[in-house]
């Protein structure tokens, strides 16, 4: 449960005054951030590494955090999204340098098809991964984290309307791909 805005602001102020008080913010938001990171990378060790990076970055930058009325978690989500993105970018570069290009997940149609052929327990995450970056982020924050559209907008630096469009399109795309996996041909494709 998130703290009340006043209490959250007090926790932030204390951490800015004395970094050793950052622990209270950590205790409050670790489960939420770890769950989000783990849902995105679906590897415990990697999730732990990235979550560590998120909180260390937050600790180091807490002094310049300015409370704007949005939940503190929005800021942590921003850091987490960037950390996850950086991880995949660096991994992609490393793989490219080793000429392992075909294994790279970059959201292209070819990968979509490849992913679509791999059915399993994690298929919904694979499908979400196959979405374009912005759609993927909006979808995971909305569907996975149950955040309000407005908060997703804050995290992504977009208007609520733009977030709605991303989710609208992302949902439509996932629906099509889920149907494709089932071997069904959509009789009445969504207009999106």
């Amino acid at each position, binding site marked *: 449960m998130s703290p009340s805005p006043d209490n959250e602001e007090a926790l932030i102020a204390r951490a*800015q*005054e*004395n*970094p*050793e008080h*950052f*622990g209270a913010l*950590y*205790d409050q938001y*670790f489960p939420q951030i*770890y*769950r989000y990171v*783990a*849902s995105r990378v*679906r*590897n*415990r060790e990697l*999730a*732990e590494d990235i*979550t*560590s990076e998120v*909180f*260390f*970055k937050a*600790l*180091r*930058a*807490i*002094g*310049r955090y300015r409370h704007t009325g949005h939940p503190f978690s929005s800021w942590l989500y921003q850091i987490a999204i960037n950390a996850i993105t*950086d*991880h995949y*970018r*660096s991994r992609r570069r*490393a793989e490219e*340098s080793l000429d392992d290009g075909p294994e790279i997940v970059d959201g292209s149609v070819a990968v979509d098809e490849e992913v679509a052929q791999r059915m399993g*327990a*994690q*298929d*919904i*995450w694979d499908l979400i991964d196959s979405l374009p970056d912005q759609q993927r982020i909006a*979808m995971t924050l*909305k*569907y*996975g984290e*149950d955040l*309000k*559209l407005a908060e997703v907008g804050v995290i992504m630096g977009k208007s609520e309307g733009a977030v*709605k469009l991303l*989710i*609208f399109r992302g*949902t*439509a795309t*996932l*629906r099509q791909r*889920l149907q494709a996996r089932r071997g069904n041909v959509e009789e*009445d494709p*969504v*207009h*999106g």
Partner: protein
Amino acid sequence: MARRPRWQRLWGRGRPDNVDPELVELFRSAPEPGDRARLLEAASEIRARLAAAPPPAADPGYRAHLRASLMAEARQHRLRSQQHPSRRFGIFFGAGLGAAGLAMVALVIFSIAAPERAGAVTVRASVGGNPRVPVTQAIQLSFNQPMVESRVEQGLVITPAVSYRTRWPDPKTLVIDPEHDLVPNVSYVVSIARQAARAQDGATALSNVVIPFGTEPLTATAQGYPPSLVAVNPVVSAVGALGLQYSENGELLLTASGSVVANGNTQAVGPSPSVPLPGPSAGAVYSISGQPAVLATDATNAVPSPDSQQIAYWTVTNSGTATLEVAPLGGQGQVSTLATVSGTSPDVVWINDSSLVYSSSGQLYQVNLDGQSNPVDPFVKLGPGQTFALAPQAQALFSRPAGVPTVWNLKTGSSVTVPGLEGSPQWSPTGSQLAYIGNSDGTDAIYLAGPYGSQPRALLVTSQGVTLSDLRYSPGGQYLTYLAATPGVGVQAGAVDIATGSSALLSTTTGLSDLVWSPFGSSLAALEAQPSEGSMVVTLQLSVPPELSSSRSQASSALAVASDLAGLQVADTPSDSAAIGDLLAAGSSIPPATLQPGPFDRFYAVSSVPLSAAASTYQVEIELVRDATAKDPAAAQDEQVTVDVSGPEPLISGVFLGSLTPLPVGPLVIGATATGAPGGSVSFALQFNSDLDPITVGAQSISLQDSGQTVANLQIAYQAANRMVTVVTGPLPPGPLSLTVQAPLANVDHVQIAVPYTLSLPTVPAPVPGS
């Protein structure tokens, strides 16, 4: 009955429970009715599938381990922040700051190792190899891959030491923002240990990162002038003095040959007659009370104690030793012998009223008045005969081991080399700041640094050819006075406002030396060289309110003036409302809670000024001081209270919190040139410190005397763009010239010139070669 379309069936059964209302509302807006149900169905399936594929749980011990690691780092940086107060937490952790907009020079590729190995960390530096980097520039390091930011920052070293903040616009880019301008004309090296240059994938640099660069020489000229610092009515007070010092309570001590101390009460000095010295007699120390009396002969390096009750000096014996003695200045009591050293007389410095520091054979010793002597610090080694300077409370020391200007932190033993430092530095009265004269590319400048010599920044840069000397802090630490020797002009006294960097000439008098502040900053005394009689004492009364005292002893003296202020205390503590409350007497009419301490490092009480003839009411000033070395100009704030001691208990009222407000004064001439040829015309160029009211520039305010006769038909012009007034004469015969600038000349604020300016020439100046 026809079966309803699928989408209608889906929609008709209501929204799924697992889809939140925002999505229901979103999909309800789909343009096609069929899409609404399909999207809703998809949303429900997505949620269901996500719920069925929970993310992997964290290792049970991981959460606690990460928390412990975070707290360890927080503690570590908190400790660093305490050791370096300017590194506030938010700042230390890379708060972006106002260095934005600093132009980056073209990136210079700086390869760590050649040939580059795949996967190895490499970096490009914005300053790499550039020998003339602007002193205001940030340093940007661009890595070839995302870095482990904490590791990089831990391994980052800049020499000479620079206080800086870091930020990472992205994981591959580190921007280092110096908190203060870099020192001009200095070679810097940014380095990162190889293992600290670690990428997120574990790769490191192949060798230590070493990025040399240099800063450009200063090219700025003297800045504007503060309106609050103008000396008026120079007063000649004595003839024959060779050295000056104020006593704690405002008595002017005249020191001849650096060793004769005589009495000169400031209350008695006046325009005339001159007060003769009892001497001069080189090598003698005189009592300052009553009739001058010889205390010692063959004395050197005499230094009064902070309370002016005693004087320390060295006497040299025939056997090649020097003896440190302390004598009471009041003439009562005995002379104490504290130490004997071999060789010539070393420096001696009072730490407080009861102990001194001197050097002997390269070692510093602290000696008490009872003669107990102990080494000061084992890690500070001076060369034989080397001079030194000591910060207040003996927290830092300056000397020149092997000729290298060095400041030691006597608390930690660490030392900082201060490149370009000329002469001896001066610590502010509180010891929180170090001021020194440096020379960059042939141009003298006043620099301010932290108490241990770090974070230097240029405060005042002179014009080419001007030589600065004799830095002196005002008692409150707000101003620095200096002597400036200008070719063709002579030695003049000036002052610079530390908060703003603006400076002012204190008078048009030349040939000055030994500039000293009175204890409360209301006047200055200096020696003015006389062609035939040695020196005269010149006192400069400043048009500013008495400045705040800032040391405990000076504050004590201020309190002695207001001796009835029972209960008023002197404080020098970290700010907190309780301590401020302690400053106010019991029964005060001001609730301490109304005094907001604010983000001040320390505060001081006080000077007190009688407001009534009966001295029953005093104005007491308390100064609140922020970080005096920061760029923030609002480094100090004044608090004024009125204390009424006419009743049984002091009544304190009239609290005023606000920044110091300078007094308005008029324009000043800050530079003058004259060119011409005998028998021809003469051109004067007068540089002013501020914009002039052009209506006041003319024959009514500027006149020229040639051999005592007023020269008519001067062509006077004002160039507003550069605040320059030019005066051109017709053909003049050879003879002494005297150009005078006076009221009604005024600045654009309609404030007239306070001190008439006179430029005297023995004859018509020669033309400038090549002009």
